[in-house]
């Protein structure tokens, strides 16, 4: 199969959905002729025109709210927030408006919009352009939170997000934009709330998100040489969450590691850990380990940022720690 980048896979999903449904429109900063800061919307304005691919002023509350209103009245808008850090200035529109409407209107009306944004440190962009607080959205009922881990997931999940009738927070990852992977040319959708077992194993379960799925698979490969069999699960959507797949695996292996780039405290890794403690405690043979970002803002200085980040090596350390509990 052909290989394309994560970025191009997203672009392809947008193109396919816009071709198929003229109610799909894109709003975002610099998404027109510039093609978006990460080039995800490259070429789309030429193809679909400035009416449907709209460069908006720096007014996140305004244009995200506009997407909510448009979605409520029959459109399927996709907005791009340049960095997840900037969602803080439109949280009211996301949390109090988009997420609540269907519920507080008693099941009347729906908000079929997608908010695309990205997380991830590692580009020297410091504390206001590198955060990974996607867990905040998973805390809010009424939102779907998607975490594509590779090009295949990027295309299939974005197509599903656009066609889904709920407000979707589509959380991309900066370091993945240029990674390549096999992506079918035809359109396809990956259902929400269904985790994928990326690698089957018997001894340890790793639940990983975003770029850490790849890191976990590398770590699993190395551990296999020592006879340690690691199962790697990619939840794909943080909300709704496929608890069954995770719990089935944890009950089988009895050892759980969670790898997520959010801060350690109250993050997605904590949530998975809590689920295991609540629903599978008697199966646990070892302490659960959260591989997560330290509870500090992302620092700028390269050695500090490097120390902030983690990946394959840290996951391997965790594997050693939990396997010590025979």
């Amino acid at each position, binding site marked *: 199969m052909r290989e394309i980048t994560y970025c191009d896979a997203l672009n392809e999903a947008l193109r396919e959905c816009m071709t198929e449904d003229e*109610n799909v*429109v894109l709003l975002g900063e610099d998404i027109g002729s510039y093609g978006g800061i990460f080039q995800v919307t490259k070429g789309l304005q030429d193809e679909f025109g400035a*009416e*449907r691919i*709209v460069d*908006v*002023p720096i*007014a996140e*509350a*305004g*244009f*995200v*709210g*506009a*997407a*909510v*209103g*448009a*979605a*409520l*009245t*029959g*459109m399927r*808008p996709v907005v791009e927030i340049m960095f997840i850090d900037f969602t803080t200035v439109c949280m*009211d*529109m996301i949390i*109090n*408006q988009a997420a609540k*409407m*269907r*519920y*507080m*209107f*008693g*099941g*009347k*009306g*729906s908000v*079929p919009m997608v908010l695309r944004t990205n997380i991830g440190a590692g580009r020297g962009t410091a504390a206001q352009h590198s955060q990974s607080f996607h867990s905040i959205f998973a805390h809010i*009922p*009424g939102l*779907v939170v998607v975490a594509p881990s590779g090009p295949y997931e990027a295309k299939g999940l974005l197509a599903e997000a656009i066609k*889904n*009738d*709920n407000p979707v927070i589509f959380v991309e990852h900066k370091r993945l934009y240029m990674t390549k992977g096999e992506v079918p040319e035809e359109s396809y959708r990956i259902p929400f709330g269904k985790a994928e077992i990326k690698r089957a194993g018997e001894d340890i379960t790793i639940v990983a998100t975003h770029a850490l799925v790849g890191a976990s698979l590398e770590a699993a490969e190395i551990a296999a040489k020592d006879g340690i069999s690691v199962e790697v699960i990619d939840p794909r959507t943080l909300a*709704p969450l496929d608890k069954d797949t995770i719990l089935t695996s944890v009950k089988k292996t009895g050892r759980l590691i969670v790898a997520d780039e959010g801060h350690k405290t109250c993050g997605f890794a904590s949530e998975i850990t809590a689920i295991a403690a609540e629903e599978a405690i008697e199966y646990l043979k070892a302490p659960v380990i959260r591989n997560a970002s330290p509870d500090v803002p992302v620092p700028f200085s390269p050695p500090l940022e490097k120390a902030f980040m983690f990946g394959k090596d840290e996951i391997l350390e965790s594997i050693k720690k939990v396997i010590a509990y025979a």
Partner: protein
Amino acid sequence: MRLTKEKLSSFYQTMQTIRLFEERIVDLYARGQVPGLAHLYIGEEAVATGVCGALNKADYITSTHRGHGHVIAKGAALNPMMAELFGKVTGYCKGKGGSMHIADMDEGILGANGIAGGGLPIAIGAGWSAKWRKTTQVTACFFGDDASSNGTFHESLNLASLHKLPVLFICENNGYGISVSQAKCTPIKDIASRAVAYDMPGVVVDGNNVVEVYKAAEKAVKRARAGEGPTVIECKTYRWRGHHEGDPNQGGRYRTKEEIQEWKEKCPILQFEKALLKEKKATKTQLDEITRATEEAIDEAVLFAKESDYPSIEEMYKDVLV
């Protein structure tokens, strides 16, 4: 512009419905039958009535925390409204939204809104949507004087004007953001003057004069439907009650009795009634009959709400996602 007797009579009926509905809430709230927060619209009826009088059923409104008047004027039915305020399953939102979240997609009511300034971006989204879908729908966006201090006001006016969106920005200036007077919130006298910054018309009208409000709205609607863009209409008015039921002495901690009395004398309904009778657009009997029928409809709504069931506990888990 001449208004038909029917149109004028419908204004009277709408204003009287809002007034009597709200007065009934005062009583029910005091008796503990309506839970939560009730932000009443008494004194401001001419604004919602005049603006919605200029809209079609297919047009949209976004509303505020003080939204009963807007949704009644846009066509909401009294029974499900009253039931919603009681928290009953027969309410507009199955009892899950309450006073601040009444919505009815069929009537173009995109929801009252508990966040000050929260409705503005949603309104421009609805306007943008009509433009994308190539319909002639317009959206009227109600907000208070102090919501114009919020960033969403400026972001929305900017975007709406930039893209010539069919939106009416209706500022209901009742002089206070809860307890703080307009003078303490902004150096400008007229909120409408802010329209200048976004290159759109901004007009100031007497918000207690339903005909004047209607005429301004109608002009703005025409402009919007013609694709010429949005208008700000500032309606100067006053709320007679406190910020919400339970605000001591109807806002007596920050307003004088004299001031309240002065505005009560400018009652939008009495003024309109006098004008109708003087110009012989209606008879006293006709108006009394409207009032009596409205009272009856409200009695029925209260009975309907009281006799309705509360939602089942299972209902709590429904409608989170589609």
